[in-house]
């Protein structure tokens, strides 16, 4: 059993009771909701005659279904318009704050929480979306939940939960130039596997994380769930406090010292005990691309694709399915694989620093004529900040489309979709079969800078060579 970790401290501060089932009732400090997984939950509480118990701890936005070419209403897609109508009605009826298009704060739910200062160290957070783990970057326990659990949080501000084990994931040393947080998270998943984190919370640490910005930490925590860990977090430090200072919902400046002391108290103790510890060397990490249908099927961009014989017997079926779906060959290089679509955005890599990195590659270059390329800022705030720096012009001059904020082609519940067998270079988080909107479509995950490099070359490329 882990002891003295941030996980233990945040958990203990939020336990309401041990339930007769043996589960724990956990108070949820921040509930984020969006249009897709909340309408049924609101219907359930209406059916039971219940109210939203803590509307002041509940915040809503729209991201999954919103078109990114134009946010004009009504949407052309009737179902999307109906879904939009449902969340508008529900937040009005139950008195929940709503970051809609007019607010200037609309965006992907895991981007708007941190950028508005809603996400704060020591909190428990829940959202009906698996990438809620993103918020762990601030030293929170953030849980992705299903709709019936969204109902429970709406009605009671609590969840019935089982405790997790805690695995410390250290990445020490220095990253090579051109290696990003996305490569670090893909590397960890490659090494520990997509099932390795089942039953665990991941505490990320070591000098690489100490030196990371908050946006880089968010990219890694975002994909904890892709490694099977429902929760991933980084201990709060000066980087965390500096990021939060002065944001819309951050505590007031006159209380700052007291607040920071409170936040610091949640960091894992020096002699904390973990259920497991793994160590990686940051210097071993190359720019990584996936080649298969699960996020752990990945290689360094200059590596050859693995032979099927390298995998354990029970993995062979998935590996064969992956090669068949992707139409790639064991032993072949991945670099040079032609792409059709380049997508920069998502809750993994749709923040300002991601767009800056991609713009460095796009600047003064042209997107290949064979590629449809687009950049989707993660929020209205990210979009405005990027435009202030002129990033939009760099992208459009290079031949990228510049879009409105939303989830876009990460999950293709909106008009942004792959067609047929198209292959996309994507800065998102899932390369699952059918994920990007075509059941035969193919996805290669990589960092935003690597997507920009692929867009320009028209094929999978090493961003370091493109920048030379």
């Amino acid at each position, binding site marked *: 059993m882990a002891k003295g970790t941030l996980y233990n401290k945040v958990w203990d501060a939020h336990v309401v009771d041990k339930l007769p*089932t043996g589960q724990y009732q956990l108070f949820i400090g921040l509930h984020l909701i969006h249009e*897709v997984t909340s309408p049924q939950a609101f*219907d359930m509480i209406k059916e039971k005659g219940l109210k939203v118990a803590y509307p002041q701890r509940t915040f809503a936005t729209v991201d999954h279904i919103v078109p990114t070419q134009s946010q004009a209403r009504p949407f052309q897609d009737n179902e999307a318009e109906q879904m939009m109508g449902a969340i508008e009605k529900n937040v009005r009826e139950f008195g929940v704050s709503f970051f809609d298009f007019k607010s200037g704060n609309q965006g992907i739910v895991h981007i708007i929480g941190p950028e508005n200062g809603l996400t704060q160290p020591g909190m428990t957070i829940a959202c009906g979306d698996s990438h809620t783990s993103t918020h762990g970057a601030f030293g929170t326990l953030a849980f*992705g939940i299903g709709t019936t659990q969204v109902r429970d949080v709406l009605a009671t501000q609590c969840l019935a939960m089982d405790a997790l084990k805690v695995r410390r994931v250290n990445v020490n040393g220095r990253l090579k130039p051109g290696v990003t947080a996305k490569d670090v998270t893909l590397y960890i998943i490659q090494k520990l596997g997509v099932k390795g984190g*089942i039953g665990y919370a991941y505490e990320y640490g070591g000098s690489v994380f100490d030196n990371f910005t908050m946006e880089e930490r968010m990219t890694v925590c975002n994909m904890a769930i892709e490694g*099977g860990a429902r929760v991933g977090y980084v201990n709060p430090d000066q980087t965390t406090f500096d990021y939060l200072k002065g944001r819309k919902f951050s505590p007031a400046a006159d209380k700052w010292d007291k607040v920071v002391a409170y936040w610091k108290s949640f960091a894992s103790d020096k002699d904390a005990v973990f259920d497991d510890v793994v160590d990686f060397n940051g210097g071993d990490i190359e720019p990584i691309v996936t080649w298969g249908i699960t996020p752990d099927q990945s290689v360094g961009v200059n590596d050859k694709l693995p032979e099927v014989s390298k995998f354990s017997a029970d993995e062979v079926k*998935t590996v064969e399915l992956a090669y068949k779906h992707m139409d790639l060959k064991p032993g072949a290089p991945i670099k040079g694989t032609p792409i059709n679509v380049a997508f920069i955005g998502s809750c993994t890599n749709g923040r300002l620093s991601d767009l800056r990195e991609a713009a460095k590659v796009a600047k003064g270059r042209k997107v290949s004529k064979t590629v449809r390329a687009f950049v989707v800022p993660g929020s209205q705030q990210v979009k405005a900040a990027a435009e202030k720096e002129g990033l939009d012009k760099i992208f459009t001059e290079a031949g990228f489309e510049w879009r409105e904020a939303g989830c876009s082609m990460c999950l293709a519940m909106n008009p942004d979709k792959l067609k047929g067998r198209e292959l996309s270079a994507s800065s998102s988080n899932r390369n699952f*079969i059918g994920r990007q909107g075509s059941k035969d479509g193919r996805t290669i995950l990589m960092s935003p800078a690597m997507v920009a490099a692929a867009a320009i070359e028209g094929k999978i490329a090493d961003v370091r060579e493109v920048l030379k």
Partner: protein
Amino acid sequence: MSKINQIEGKAVPVEGNDIDTDRIIPARYLKEITFTNMGKYPFYDERFDAEGKPKGHPFDLPQFAGSHILFVNQNFGCGSSREHAPQSLMRWGIRAIVGESFAEIFAGNCTMLGIPTVTVGRADMEKLQALAKQKPETQFLLDLDKKALYSEGKEHLKFEIHESKRNALVNGTWDSTGLLLANAGKTADVAKKLPYVAGF
């Protein structure tokens, strides 16, 4: 809320590790604002071709029609937290899932719907899937009190299930709202002690 102690029925095998919730239910069906129609969609893109004709997925084979138990392999239900996935399986007719391992959020969602997710080892699962394929008429009985799976009335093997999930199912408290609401007073006490709730 009903107590769930035993689930009886035929079993349908769906083979493969890491079957994610996008494969269980493609995102386009999440645009519906109720779960009512979800029973039509499980594994849709693996079951039907572009013209909507069945491709021979186990969910469409006559010998597995009416099955209540699903046999799966490792990390079933990974990926998106969409409850539409277990909703679609449940509304198709699945009442219990036996697998080698389950993604955490998926298993939690199943419990909230009263669907047990129980685990067995790899060798046992291979045998179970083979039995369901070779003798699809086999009647299985999954007993949560005894943590045992029976076939044709005989004990076949023991399975594992998270004890708190088992308790919730056998005691009829898997729909947790009632339990949580009963602690509204204690919840308010905890909220009061958290400085951020009051704005520091």
